[in-house]
């Protein structure tokens, strides 16, 4: 994209400079060079900036065909170099030869420093389709900031080989490869194609050509030029231009004369030697032959071009480059996913135990592309949010212009005081948004420790901060042997629930649970909600969520391994006093329940299973091995099956 944008702005930072380019071609019929080529190469008043001179049949010896060396190469190079325009000094940029096909490119020394990327390649199309007796050679250069490609080719000979010549052209076009961009001939800004293309005249006999030449009826001869016909019907040299030919055919002459072939074969004259071009800003000034060279059966041909060569202004280029960078930055940043979030601070206010609170944020896709979002983990954290928060959805996609509601639900099962979290909302391939979540946890007896509750003179929400602080630091007196709230629930069940069927097995309404929680936490002059199953469920919840479990975590496994009642008793004696009180208090209550098992449907196994797992509970993330789970039930079962009155001690 950068290249494309720079290319399309080229006019803004380049100026065009006119450069004269001299292109020549000559089939030299294996002859050594004459003393000078000046009347060919230096016939124009002004020295050209660049020469591209091609020869064909430079060396017809077998050696040249079989081996790559040829003494002729250097001889002709010297002939060219010494015949350049006296008005300037030249330097050879490149010389390439394939058997007899040689191309040499020279440049004025003043401009030598502005040539880059010089490369060449050859392509044989002769015997077996690849030998070098026919084919092409090419040199390409970057002159200032325009790429130029010069091709010298010698295409298949003979009157009837038109298709073969077309094929040779295509082969050269396809097979020449400079290995670095621009790689192929066609990719260059300007292409100069010269050579003995070998196209003949159709239909006209030797005599007819001569007669028309004398009558100066050039157009009537050129009508039958094979190259002209093939090109106009699109079979060869597509996109190339050739200027009008005003000189007489360059082939075939008797050696050392200006007379057309007088041998027995009497080949009809033809314009075998041609120069074509393709590209922008190329202006051919002249197109001519040089009759005075008589040593070959061909005459040299030359063309002078005034070509527009782009020269980059580096200061302007830098400026344009910066603009392009800015544009690219803009485009790239515009297609980045963009969203707006209606709030980045989600406040939950007071949240109560077991009463989930939800908030929604709206994420709107304000960008130009679909957005994929997800919440990602922060460094050193296991999940993308704390365990008391649930985010739905936690990932998804939003189309441009669309919105997505994301729901945050806080459900507190432990006392957190002030709670907060920072969530990272990540956009795939884009930015991250931090969302703060915070709130206050309302205290509840359900999530307070047994030791604190036993020191509370009032329902927990009526306690002053100072009273609470004293209770929590265990500096105040123990007022109750079991938490008052526990007693309230058990007492109610004792009075109303002993004969209730399916006690602890039916589910209560959530609203009723909330009412009982508030009644316990706030205190009231009214009696407790008269709903046995709700109170029973609250009792279970209470035992399940007390800040410390009834049997401390570190003693759970030992209790579960007790093999007899004596061991169980000794474990219970090791519990903290208040915890032991709660444990035995619950056991006494359960034993009372069992007395009415016919009415309430309970049995030892069932109660031991329910309460064993609650009073000997695990930390949140720990799962029991099966024998531990069974051991907990067995532990409680011992207390339900045996007399425990000896364990009950008077309140201290």
């Amino acid at each position, binding site marked *: 994209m950068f290249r494309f944008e720079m290319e399309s702005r080229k006019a803004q930072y380049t100026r065009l400079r006119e450069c004269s380019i001299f292109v020549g071609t000559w089939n030299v019929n294996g002859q050594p060079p004459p003393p000078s080529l000046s009347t060919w190469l230096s016939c124009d008043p002004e020295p050209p900036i660049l020469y591209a001179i091609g020869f064909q049949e430079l060396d017809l010896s077998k050696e040249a065909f079989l081996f790559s060396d040829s003494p002729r190469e250097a001889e002709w190079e010297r002939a060219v170099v010494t015949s350049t325009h006296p008005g300037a000094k030249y330097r050879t940029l490149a010389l390439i030869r394939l058997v007899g096909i040689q191309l040499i490119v020279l440049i004025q020394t003043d401009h030598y420093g502005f040539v880059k990327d010089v490369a060449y390649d050859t392509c044989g199309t002769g015997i077996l389709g690849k030998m070098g007796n026919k084919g092409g050679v090419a040199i390409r250069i970057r002159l200032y900031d325009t790429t130029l490609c010069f091709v010298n080719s010698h295409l298949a000979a003979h009157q009837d080989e038109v298709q073969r010549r077309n094929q040779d052209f295509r082969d050269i076009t396809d097979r020449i490869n400079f290995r670095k961009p621009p790689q192929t001939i066609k990719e260059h800004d300007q292409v100069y194609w010269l050579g003995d293309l070998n196209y003949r005249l159709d239909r006209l006999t030797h005599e007819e050509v001569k007669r028309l030449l004398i009558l100066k009826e050039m157009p009537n001869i050129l009508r039958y030029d094979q190259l002209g016909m093939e090109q106009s019907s699109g079979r060869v040299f597509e996109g190339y231009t050739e200027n009008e030919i005003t000189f007489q055919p360059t082939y075939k002459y008797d050696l050392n004369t200006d007379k057309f072939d007088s041998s027995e074969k009497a080949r009809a004259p033809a314009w075998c030697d041609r120069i074509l071009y393709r590209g922008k800003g190329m202006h051919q000034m002249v197109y001519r032959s040089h009759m005075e060279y008589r040593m070959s059966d061909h005459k040299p041909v030359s063309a002078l071009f005034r070509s527009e060569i782009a020269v980059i202004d580096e200061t302007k280029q830098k400026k344009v480059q910066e603009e392009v960078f800015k544009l690219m930055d803009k485009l790239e940043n515009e297609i980045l996913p963009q969203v707006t979030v209606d709030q980045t601070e989600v406040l939950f206010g007071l949240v109560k135990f077991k009463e989930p609170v939800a908030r929604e944020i709206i994420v709107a896709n304000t960008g130009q592309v679909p957005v994929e979002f997800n919440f990602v983990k922060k*460094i050193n954290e296991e999940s993308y949010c704390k365990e008391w928060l649930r985010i739905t959805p936690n990932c998804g996609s939003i189309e441009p212009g669309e919105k997505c509601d994301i729901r945050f639900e806080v459900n507190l099962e432990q006392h957190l005081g002030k709670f907060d979290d920072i969530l990272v909302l990540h956009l795939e391939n884009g930015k991250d948004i931090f969302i703060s979540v915070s709130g206050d946890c309302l205290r509840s007896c359900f999530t307070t420790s047994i030791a604190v509750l036993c020191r509370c003179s009032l329902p927990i929400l009526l306690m002053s901060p100072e009273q609470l602080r004293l209770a929590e630091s265990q500096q105040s007196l123990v007022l109750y042997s079991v938490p008052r709230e526990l007693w309230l629930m058990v007492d109610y069940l004792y009075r109303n629930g002993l004969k209730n069927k399916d006690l602890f097995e039916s589910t209560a309404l959530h609203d009723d649970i909330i009412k009982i929680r508030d009644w316990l936490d706030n205190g009231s002059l009214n009696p407790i909600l008269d709903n046995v199953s709700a109170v029973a469920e609250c009792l279970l919840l209470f035992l399940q969520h007390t800040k410390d479990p009834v049997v401390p975590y570190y003693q759970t496994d030992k209790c579960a391994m007790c093999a007899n009642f004596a061991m169980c008793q000794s474990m219970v004696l090791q519990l903290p006093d208040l915890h032991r009180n709660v444990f035995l208090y619950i056991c006494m209550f359960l034993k009372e329940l069992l007395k009415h098992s016919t009415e309430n449907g309970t049995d030892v196994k069932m109660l031991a299973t329910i309460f064993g797992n609650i009073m000997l509970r695990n930390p949140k993330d720990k799962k029991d091995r099966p024998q531990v789970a069974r051991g907990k039930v067995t532990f409680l079962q011992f207390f339900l099956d045996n007399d425990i009155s000896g364990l009950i001690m008077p309140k201290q």
Partner: protein
Amino acid sequence: MISLTYKFTVVMADCPHTIGVEFGTRIIEVCGQKIKLQIWDTAGQERFRAVTRSYYRGAAGALMVYDITRRSTYNHLSSWLTDTRNLTNPSTVIFLIGNKCDLEGQRDVTYEEAKQFAEENGLMFVEASAKTGSNVEDAFLETATRIYQSIQDGRLDLNAAESGVQHKPSQPGRNLSNDLHQKDNCPC
């Protein structure tokens, strides 16, 4: 066309505006080489400090920005610098930028003082103005050039994980690929 991508982390000390991490890209030229900067502009508020830490990882360059008219932002620098040093690799180029140098009249932190802090901690330092654009460009360029030099003289190993430099243009993501190659000779 862009063969190198640098990850840059920008932190603006105590800046109330960024809530999260803004992501953007920029192309600049260093020694004739086009380089794409992936810029992670992180929230500089103290409360986000624990979260923004993860964005320092794998940064080739870090720009720490304070406000010359608010001393509190300058005072936060040493804690941000600690994070930057701890979480980036030793070759990460850290640039200290005193922003809002256009508000000379409200200056609360002297140039000399910040310069000294930078020297003591081996940081590059410049005062700039995001508003007028003065020196901001230079800070980016200078940082990118230093990184480029680190690569050239081998101090920054492109093959190391979290070098913050990618050989190919890439999409931002939390995991930068380690698919890097030593690049060709430097034209500078």
